[in-house]
């Protein structure tokens, strides 16, 4: 039976400070949450910091589809009430708590503020199970503050900074309460360290093994030191970093080789530790990250331009890759930035690690990305060089400076199918989109294309406005103290990051079904408008019947040119779809008042989940089957081989969006026996403008066997777009999707 005492306590504190200054309210809630939600050290941990989040609480990220900021997991709590027999008195308390959060939960507050049009067309928050064109997401994800500052000055330094800023706040007309809240929050952070120190000393006392006793005391010493001094060693740096990320609920870790590299090399030079010991630290940290089990987060980036002490950073980067190679977990999602002229040992090591069965590091091409970011976001080249890519999707952000949570999803293929039917969703029969005329009325292909664009634009506009609304309410709700602490220019301004403090507040929007949409449009253009082989009515009949009885037409549709084959007709249609949505989205920023608003073309399991409510499409895809993944050709359609595929996927511009993901899978035969070929493939791809590559080495036989004998393939990891997963744990649908994507 789940114990609700902590949740009830937090609710009490929240009630008490409900009308207090947001910074004080947040600080007091943090104090109620921590260290209460932290859990004990586990065997083998070299660093303290594990956490069991409650059903009620505060986070910058999310603890469920709509559980973010001040959140309450309504469904889970209701389930508990149904499942367990709580004593009557406690039950009443829990029910009262539920009722209280009904109006206080941040997501609920946001939804309540939707203007009528937004409420009508963004009618559901359940994008996974509802048929619709566009959905809002409730979260503030991808936060990546300035870790370097944290480690440079430590808790005492931060404390001092707060004191100084507070002292002059009144006269500079900055918000004194903001700093007061900040001070409480830092005290909480120190309290967490001291709480762990005490617990661990107790463990050390009762331990009978000398070595273990010693190790535990070292951990406790470290925890103590970081409350009174800035970190001086790698061990202290990691410990402070780790406690902080958990308390702040930061799930992505920025450019770790920059902020850890110097600690590592100083320790090594001073003889404090050797490489083996350092690797042990990293492995323990990696394991702690893995156990956090975030599914899509836990990004660590190494390599790339503008690392102040490159040699030290390289040394850390090599060690990080070794940790990934040996820990063999799904997370962290180690990523390597590289550029022409970087120490080649890093890229070489990366290929070894990928070849060892990890899908990491994910590769990021600085020579393309920095210019793309410069163009898409308008950041200067110097600033763009600081980019980081949090979570699975990898939207570019600047560490400690910019923010761009994806707060909306749009299913482009659904937009097209609704447009073909005058606003009606073929899955539900309801009008869910703009009614722009019947397919018959679109006399030219351009008529259809224009209607499709209008449909998409309408929903994009709503999503852009929704993102701003989300930020606005979050800004009113809380200053997000731990994050604002290390985000320019919150401290200097005395403002929370969403209340005008952050330097660059942007937003992103996830698009799905891009390739299926483009390929459908190509088929319609070719077969209906140009060659007139199929009539419009016929096409709708065929699609409504999911091709049953029309196999001949399905074949014609399937044989129409497809993106991914280096075919001009199909590739240029994809570019058309891509340019339209990317540019339209990008142009929203100014209208709604964001620093940037950009598309991300990611791949995760959303293409499968949203495919489930999308009917048959004109590219030959059957109803409810998965849609294409990210920017990739739709399953199995890249028939011309890997060079043709790579030639196609470098075509859509990378300079007008916030990031895209490219999955590539290679058979072990190719990867191991022909490393030269792999290297030249990648080199050519990156030379031609490839931005990113996520490489999986496996073979089809592996996967087919895994379907039959799952127990033998537990250690088979595959990338499902933005994250890695144990193949055997995926649904058959997703497994089949992976199988259908071509292996080279």
């Amino acid at each position, binding site marked *: 039976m789940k114990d609700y005492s902590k949740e009830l306590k937090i609710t009490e504190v929240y009630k008490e400070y409900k009308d207090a200054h947001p910074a004080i309210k947040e600080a007091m809630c943090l104090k109620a949450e921590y260290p209460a939600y932290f859990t004990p050290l586990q065997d083998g941990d070299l660093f303290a910091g594990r956490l069991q989040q409650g059903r009620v609480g505060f986070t910058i990220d999310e603890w469920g589809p709509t559980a973010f900021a001040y959140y309450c997991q309504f469904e889970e709590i209701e389930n508990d009430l149904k499942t367990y027999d709580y004593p009557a008195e406690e039950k009443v308390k829990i029910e009262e708590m539920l009722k209280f959060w009904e109006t206080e939960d941040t997501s609920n507050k946001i939804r309540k503020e939707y203007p009528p049009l937004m409420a009508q067309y963004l009618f559901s928050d359940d994008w996974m199970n509802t048929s619709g064109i566009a959905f809002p997401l409730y979260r503030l994800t991808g936060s990546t503050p300035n870790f370097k500052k944290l480690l440079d000055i430590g808790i005492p330094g931060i404390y001092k900074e707060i004191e100084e800023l507070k002292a002059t706040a009144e006269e500079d007309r900055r918000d004194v309460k903001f700093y007061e809240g900040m001070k409480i929050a830092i005290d909480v952070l120190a309290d967490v360290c001291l709480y762990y120190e005490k617990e661990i000393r107790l463990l050390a006392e009762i331990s009978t093994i000398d070595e273990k006793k010693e190790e535990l005391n070292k951990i406790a010493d470290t925890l103590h030191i970081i409350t009174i001094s800035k970190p001086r060693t790698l061990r202290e740096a990691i410990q402070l970093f780790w406690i902080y990320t958990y308390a702040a609920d930061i799930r992505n870790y920025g450019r770790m080789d920059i902020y850890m590299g110097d600690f590592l090399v100083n320790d090594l030079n001073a003889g404090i530790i050797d490489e083996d010991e350092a690797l042990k630290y990293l492995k323990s940290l990696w394991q702690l990250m893995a156990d956090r089990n975030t599914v899509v987060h836990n990004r660590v980036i190494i390599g790339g331009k503008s690392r102040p002490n490159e040699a030290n950073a390289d040394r850390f980067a090599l060690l990080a890759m070794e940790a990934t190679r040996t820990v063999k977990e799904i997370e962290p999602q180690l990523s390597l930035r590289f550029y022409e002229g970087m120490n080649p040992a890093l890229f070489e090591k990366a290929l070894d690690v990928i070849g060892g069965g990890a899908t990491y590091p994910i590769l990021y091409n600085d020579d393309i990305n920095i210019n793309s970011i410069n163009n898409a976001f308008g950041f200067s080249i110097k600033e763009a060089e600081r980019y980081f890519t949090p979570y699975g999707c990898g939207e570019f952000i600047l560490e400690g400076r910019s923010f761009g949570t994806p707060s909306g999803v749009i299913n482009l293929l659904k937009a097209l199918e609704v447009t073909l039917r005058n606003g009606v969703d073929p899955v539900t029969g309801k009008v869910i989109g703009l009614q722009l005329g019947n397919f018959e009325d679109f006399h030219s292909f351009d008529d259809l294309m224009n209607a499709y664009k209008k449909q998409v634009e309408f929903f994009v506009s709503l999503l852009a406005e929704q993102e701003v609304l989300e930020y606005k309410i979050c800004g009113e709700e809380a200053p997000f103290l731990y994050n604002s602490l290390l985000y320019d220019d919150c401290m200097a301004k005395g403002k929370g990051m969403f209340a005008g403090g952050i330097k660059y507040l942007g937003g992103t929007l996830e698009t799905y079904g891009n390739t299926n949409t483009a390929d459908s449009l190509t088929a319609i253009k070719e077969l209906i408008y140009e060659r007139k082989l199929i009539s419009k009515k016929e096409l709708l009949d065929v699609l409504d019947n999911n091709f049953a009885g029309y196999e001949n037409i399905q*074949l014609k549709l399937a044989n129409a040119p497809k993106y991914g084959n280096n075919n001009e007709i199909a590739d240029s249609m994809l570019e058309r779809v891509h340019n339209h949505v990317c540019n339209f989205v990008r142009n929203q920023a100014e209208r709604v008042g964001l620093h940037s608003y950009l598309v991300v073309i990611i791949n995760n399991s959303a293409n499968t989940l949203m495919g489930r409510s999308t009917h048959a499409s004109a590219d030959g895809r059957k109803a409810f089957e998965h849609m294409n993944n990210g920017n990739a050709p739709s399953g199995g359609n890249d028939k011309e081989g890997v*060079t043709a595929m790579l030639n196609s996927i470098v075509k859509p511009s990378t300079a007008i969006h916030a990031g895209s993901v490219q999955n590539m899978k290679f058979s072990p035969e190719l990867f191991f026996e*022909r490393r030269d*070929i792999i290297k030249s*493939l990648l080199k*050519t791809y990156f030379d031609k403008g490839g931005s990113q590559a996520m490489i999986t080495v496996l073979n089809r036989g592996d996967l087919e066997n895994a379907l039959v004998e799952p127990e033998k393939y537990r250690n088979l990891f595959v990338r499902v777009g933005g994250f890695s997963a144990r193949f055997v744990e995926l649904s058959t649908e997703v497994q089949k999707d992976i199988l259908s994507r071509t292996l080279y």
Partner: protein
Amino acid sequence: MNDSGIIVDIQRFSIHDGPGIRTTVFLKGCPLNCKWCHNPEAIAYKPQLSFNQEKCLNCFACLSVCPTSTHYIKDNKHEINFSLCQLSGDCVPACPNEALSITGKINSVEQVIELILKDKDFYINSGGGVTISGGEPMTQFQFTKQILKACKDNSIHTTLDTCGHAPSEKYLEILPLVDLFLYDYKESDYDKHKEYTGVYNDLIQKNFNMLYGASAKIILRCPIVPGINDTDRHFEAICDLYKEYPKLVGIEIMPYHNIGLDKARKIGAEEKFISIDTTDKEKSRKWISTLHELGCTNIRLG
């Protein structure tokens, strides 16, 4: 000047027919008739109807569109008489399940080059290029020569995969355009060569000597077929060559695979070929070690 030719297929990202990443152009037409042919659809000089029995739904849509009696019904099943086909192509789009196709397409040199150039960056970065294979590319000599010439004009590395059975002067003519030959060495015994391939090997040996003498770069390719030429005698002959021709770039062993049989079936020609199991890995490894023991070291599986 012939500026078009008949092509079976163009394979991009080809990594087994010469160095690096390549585009391999398979031409139609071959003067030999090897019993173990891996590309039987590339033997005839003209396009052919191809029928995939496994995909046939017995819907008989092909019957009504065909101007001949190529397709017919027997016991309620679709049957085919390849010899009657006039290659009108009408049945191909009529088939709802892609059971029918025409093997062999007329392509112009420009079309081929356009495709080849798409992957030029990959060739440069990998040390790859273009391979002309078949069939026997020398049978479409002008076409082959023009493709090779265009490749050279674009600074693309060229490889010619040849059986060696073509007029010697043609080889001399093409030699300046070829960076590397993949030269077949099928059977060392004179009579057996005739028995298994349909031709004697004197011309092939003559051409080989001539090209070798002219300092052509050559990789010798030896198809090894279990029960046919996996004999000690043949392996010894390969090793003798290895010693006699020290400037060979290498020797590749090509273990038999029965994929050709399936393709032969589709064009109604299966009775012309032997039917044995695909060589297992163990066996081909053993061949390699036998050759190593015989002193032949620069050798690998192709």
